[in-house]
C-alpha cells in the first residue's frame, strides 16, 4: 500500500509541520494524527531532532484514542527510555492503563505521582477522568469542585464541570460554571451561546430574557453563529407570546424576532447561492481540466 507521502506528494517537513499545527490548535483528529505520525516516526525519526519526543507523545495519545495499543506502546517505550523518571511520561503510562480499562492500576500510578508532587494538576485531572469514564458522575463532580477550590483559574476544568452538570440536568450550577468562563473569556461567543441555551432550558420569563440577551451577545461576537440566531428568534418569540409581558416588551421582542428571522433567511439564501456557485465553479474547472488547461 502506498505511503501517505506518496499518495499526497508531501515531504517529511510538511508532515512534521502539520502535526505541530494540530498540536497547537489542540485538534482531536486522532485518526489523521496516527496516519501521519506513524509514517513520520517509522521512516523519518532521525531527521526530526528533539521534536521526536513531543511527536511520540502526540502520536501515543492519538493511538490510544484509536485503540492502536501497539503504536501507543511503541511510543511509550521510546519515551520511557529517554525520560525514565518523568512524571509526564508516568501520566502517559496511566493513560494507557485507562485505555485498557485497568482503572485501579491507573489510579495507583496517578497516586504515586501526586505523592511526589501534590501540585501535579494533570494527574488529578486524569483521576477525575477515570471517574467520568466509569460513569460515576456524582463523585467526578465532587472531585472537580475540590480541584477548582485550589485551582480556580483552570478553564478546562470549569468547562468540564459545566458539561457534567448539564448531563445531570443541574442547569443552575451549569450556568454558574459558564458565568465563570464568560468572566475570564468575555470575547468567546461559544460560552455566551451555551449559557443562553442553559437559561432557555431552565425556562421561566426571567431566564428567557437572560437567554435572549446572551444569544444577542453571542451574535455581537460572531454574527455567523446560527445557533445563536435561532436561539434569539425562539427566546424573543416566546417572550412576545407571553400574556404576562407589557405591550412595550411585546413590541420590542417582536422586533428582535423579526430581525433574527430576516438574518436566518438571508444566511440560507446566501448559502444556497454559494452552493450553486460552487457547483458552477466545479463544472467550469472540470471543463477546463478536460480540454487541457
Amino acid at each position, binding site marked *: 500500500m502506498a505511503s501517505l507521502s506518496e499518495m499526497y506528494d508531501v515531504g517529511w517537513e510538511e508532515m512534521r509541520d502539520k502535526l505541530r499545527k494540530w498540536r497547537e490548535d489542540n485538534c*482531536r483528529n486522532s485518526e489523521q494524527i496516527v496516519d501521519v505520525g506513524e509514517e513520520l516516526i517509522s521512516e523519518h525519526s532521525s531527521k526530526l531532532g528533539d521534536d521526536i519526543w513531543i511527536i511520540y507523545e502526540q502520536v501515543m495519545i492519538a493511538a490510544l484514542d484509536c485503540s492502536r495499543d501497539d503504536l501507543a506502546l511503541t511510543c511509550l517505550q521510546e519515551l520511557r527510555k529517554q525520560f525514565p523518571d518523568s512524571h509526564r511520561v508516568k501520566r502517559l503510562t496511566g493513560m494507557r492503563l485507562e485505555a485498557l480499562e485497568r482503572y485501579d492500576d491507573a489510579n495507583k500510578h496517578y497516586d504515586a505521582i501526586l505523592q511526589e508532587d501534590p501540585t501535579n494538576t494533570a494527574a488529578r485531572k486524569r483521576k477525575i477522568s477515570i471517574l467520568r469514564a466509569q460513569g460515576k458522575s456524582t463523585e467526578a463532580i465532587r472531585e472537580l469542585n475540590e480541584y477548582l477550590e485550589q485551582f480556580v483559574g483552570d478553564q478546562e476544568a470549569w468547562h468540564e464541570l459545566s458539561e457534567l452538570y*448539564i448531563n445531570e*440536568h443541574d442547569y443552575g450550577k451549569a450556568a454558574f460554571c459558564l458565568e465563570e468562563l464568560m468572566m475570564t473569556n468575555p470575547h468567546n461567543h461559544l460560552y455566551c451561546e451555551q449559557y443562553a*441555551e442553559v437559561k*432557555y432550558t431552565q425556562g421561566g420569563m426571567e431566564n428567557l430574557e437572560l437567554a435572549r440577551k446572551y444569544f444577542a451577545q453571542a451574535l455581537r461576537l460572531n454574527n455567523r453563529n446560527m*445557533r445563536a440566531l435561532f436561539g434569539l*428568534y425562539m427566546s424573543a418569540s416566546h417572550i412576545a407570546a407571553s400574556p404576562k409581558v407589557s405591550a412595550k416588551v411585546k413590541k420590542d421582542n417582536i422586533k428582535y424576532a423579526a430581525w433574527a428571522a430576516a438574518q436566518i433567511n438571508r444566511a*440560507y439564501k446566501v448559502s444556497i447561492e454559494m452552493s450553486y456557485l460552487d457547483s458552477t465553479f466545479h463544472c467550469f474547472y472540470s471543463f477546463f481540466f478536460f480540454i487541457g488547461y
Partner: protein
Amino acid sequence: MQYFMDGELSCLAYVKMYLHSCLFPRCSVNGLLLSSSSAGGAVCVTDCVPLLHSHLPLAPITQLALTQVKEDLRVQEGDQKGRREPGCRRWPNRLVELLQALVSRVPLPVLSPVDFCRLGTDCCPFLSRIMLRQWEETRDIASQLLESGDHGLLVDFDGHLDDITKDWTNQTLNAKIAELSSPANGSI
C-alpha cells in the same frame, strides 16, 4: 413511559444509526426514528434522522431540530409529485411556517433512548421483538460504508448548524445505502 411492541427496523434506519455513532465515537448522540404503524400493529421503523452529538440535554437545538423534521415530513406528504430537494434549499420557502411552528405548542414525539453500545439486533429497548430483514446484508452494508470512509458523508443536525450548506436529510448517503441494498446487488 415505555412501549413494548413488535417492530421492524429497516436497513436504512439501522445503517444511519450505526454510522452516526461511528462518526462521533467519543460523544453521546441522538436522533429520531421515523416509523409507520397501523393501530395495534407492529412498528415499522423506516428511517432515522441523526440529530445531535453535543449538549443533548439542552432544549433550544433539540426543539429546533424536531420542528424542522416535522415540517420536512409534512412537506414530503404534501409534495407527492415534486422533486425531492435537499433540506437546505427548502429553507427560504418554508422558513415562515417553520419559524411559526417553532414557537407554537407543537406536541413532541415520544423519544426513546437507543443503546448504541449494543449495536446489534437488540438496540431498541422500546421494541420487545425486533425484526431486521436480511440482518447479515444490513451489517455488511454498515461495515462496508464505515471501512470506505463514507460515514463521513453523514450530516446530523448539529453538523448542519455548523455549516448550513450541509444537507441534514442525507440524500447522498440515503442513495448510497439504497444502491447497496438494492436487489441488483444481490441484497434484499
